[in-house]
Each structure stands twice: as structure tokens, then as C-alpha cells.
């Protein structure tokens, strides 16, 4: 049970011991991630993924746009992950592959309750974490408040963690 959590943070079941990454030899150069972020930021704006209007359109089932984006992203991502597994590809920087292997782990309460809480926020704010950063950069500076509010939400989760139902 040492699979990394879905966001690649600490292992899902042993939250406070992200030792695997800390023990990895040398950290890889980080500048490629900056380029990746810039590229994604541009795509998110050009395809209007960051738009509150697009998220409303999606939750009202009035256009295919967002479903097409999420669907084709998953298709391409799944194909890539499949090929990496098939050929047991190693990473360019020789760090260990952290592809989750456990497919049918029973989904505990956290996925339902946390998922619904996130969805409520997504529907109201019209932005998930990536778009919060992108919108802020694009000039919607009030998203800085949404960012601080999201930090407060994360902090509250951290403080209440042991009292919330998991698995």
C-alpha cells in the first residue's frame, strides 16, 4: 500500500512520510516544468478551459467542448501510460516511475465526499486549481482571493483530517 496519491503527493495511506521522493538521488532540473506551465497556461486560455462561462455550459450540458477536451485528454493520457507500461520505459532523469498500479482499490468515503465538495466549489468558482493560477496571471486578480480561500480550505482539511471519514 505504498501507491502515491492521485496528485503525486504523499502516499495515500501514509500521508506524512513522502520519503520515496526525498530519498531519490538528485532532484531533476525544474525549468522544464516552468515551460510546461507556460504552455498549459496558453492552451487553457486559448481553449477557454479557464472560463467560468465554459464550466457553466458544461454543467448545463449545452456544448460538447469541455467534454471533448476532458475525453480526448484522458484518451491520449491513457494511451501514453499504456505505452510506458508496455515498454517499461524509464524516466529521462532516472527517477522512479510513480504510475499508480492499484486499479481497483475500493473507493473510500473521501473520494465521494471530497469529490462532491470539490465539485460544489468548481461549479461556483468556475475554476479548478490550474485555472485559478492561469486566470490570476491573465489579469483576473481577484482570483488571488480565491487562491487564499483555497489555501484556507486545504489548511482546514489538514486540521480536521483525523475527524473526517476516510475509506
Amino acid at each position: 500500500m505504498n501507491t502515491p496519491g492521485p496528485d503525486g503527493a504523499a502516499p495515500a495511506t501514509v500521508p506524512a512520510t513522502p520519503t520515496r521522493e526525498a530519498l531519490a538521488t538528485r532532484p531533476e532540473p525544474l525549468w522544464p516544468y516552468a515551460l510546461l506551465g507556460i504552455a498549459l497556461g496558453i492552451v487553457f486560455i486559448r481553449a477557454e478551459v479557464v472560463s467560468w462561462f465554459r464550466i457553466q455550459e458544461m454543467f448545463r450540458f449545452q456544448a460538447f467542448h469541455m467534454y471533448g477536451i476532458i475525453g480526448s485528454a484522458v484518451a491520449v493520457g491513457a494511451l501514453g501510460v499504456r505505452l510506458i507500461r508496455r515498454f517499461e520505459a524509464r524516466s529521462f532523469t532516472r527517477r522512479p516511475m510513480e504510475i499508480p498500479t492499484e486499479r481497483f482499490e475500493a473507493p473510500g468515503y473521501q473520494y465521494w465526499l471530497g469529490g462532491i465538495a470539490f465539485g460544489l466549489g468548481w461549479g461556483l468558482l468556475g475554476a479548478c486549481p490550474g485555472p485559478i493560477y492561469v486566470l490570476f496571471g491573465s489579469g483576473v486578480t481577484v482570483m488571488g482571493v480565491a487562491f487564499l480561500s483555497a489555501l484556507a480550505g486545504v489548511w482546514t482539511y489538514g486540521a480536521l483530517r483525523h475527524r473526517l471519514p476516510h475509506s
Partner: protein
Amino acid sequence: MELLTRPWPWYVAGPIIGLTVPLVYLYAGRKWGISSTFRDVCAATFPHGIEHFRYSWRHVGGWRLTMALGLVVGGLLAGVTRSDDVAISEATRSDLAVLGITDFSGLVPAEIFSWASLGTLPGLVLIIGGGFLVGFGTRYANGCTSGHAISGLSALRLTSLVAVIGFFVGGLIATHVLLPLIMGGGL
């Protein structure tokens, strides 16, 4: 010029976003996700002795914090060059008009997403309430749209599928129940 003015179609944007997952694996074996940066920032600034925030955020999260900075810069670069309305459907426009939203000139409704509206009920609930729930929910579910919907589903994980269903249940309630309640009286 079309490339710069028209919204990029889903079949261009989706595959680029999806390609991020194998690309990040191939570069450093890391599982792509964005929301964990919120946790990294909490760990870096105000851990307050909470176990959830006691980890080496530099080592674990340095890569995604760098990506998050890139997202801000990318938004800046792309944001200054776009000026047209978001190309949403007529049906959505008329639905939103009923809620009192008539300004479609930006990426987000200017009536709500402004500093001035923070003092109004819709601004308070959508920006502060919505932001809080996004942060709380993403940590509770251990992932957001990138970590669960894209990375998690790409690895065909059942837990990610459940989380994504949860995202949609929440989003549908927010859209069809909460928004009319909050904005019913107009702005």
C-alpha cells in the same frame, strides 16, 4: 490570425493536455497534478504543527510549484492578447441572462469576478466560498481535475472515477440549485 482569435477546438486542446501525463512521467516519473501545490504552500507558510503539512515541500513539491508559476506566466502571455467574447452556446447565454449575467466580454463574468463584488452575496459565495470548497475538496479527495480526471483516469483507477463522479454531482448541484438561490434576486 484565426489561430489567435478563435478558441482552440477541443481536439487540439484536449490531446495537448493529455500528453502532459506521459510527458511528465517520461521526464521524471512524476504523476501530474496541480492541486497539491496548495498543500505545498500551506506546508511552506503555515504548517502550524499539523501532520498533513509536515513534509519536505521543497523536495516533494518543487516541481509542481515551478509549473504553477509557469501557469501564471502563461496566463499573462495569453491573456493580454485575447479580447473577444467566450464562444459559449446561445442556450447558456440565455440561461445565464436569467440569473442576471449579461456581460460576456471576458473569460469570467465581470459582474461577479471583481474586487468590488467581494462585498456582495454572489461575489462572497462564488469566490470565497467556491475557492474554499475547491481547496478543501481537492485535498479530501486527494486530487483535482488534473490529478483525478486526467492522470487518475489515464491510469484507469476506480477511485479516480468515483472522485470524478463526485465532481460532477457537486457541480450539478452548484449550477442548478445553489446558483439560482444565490443569484435569484438578480445582482
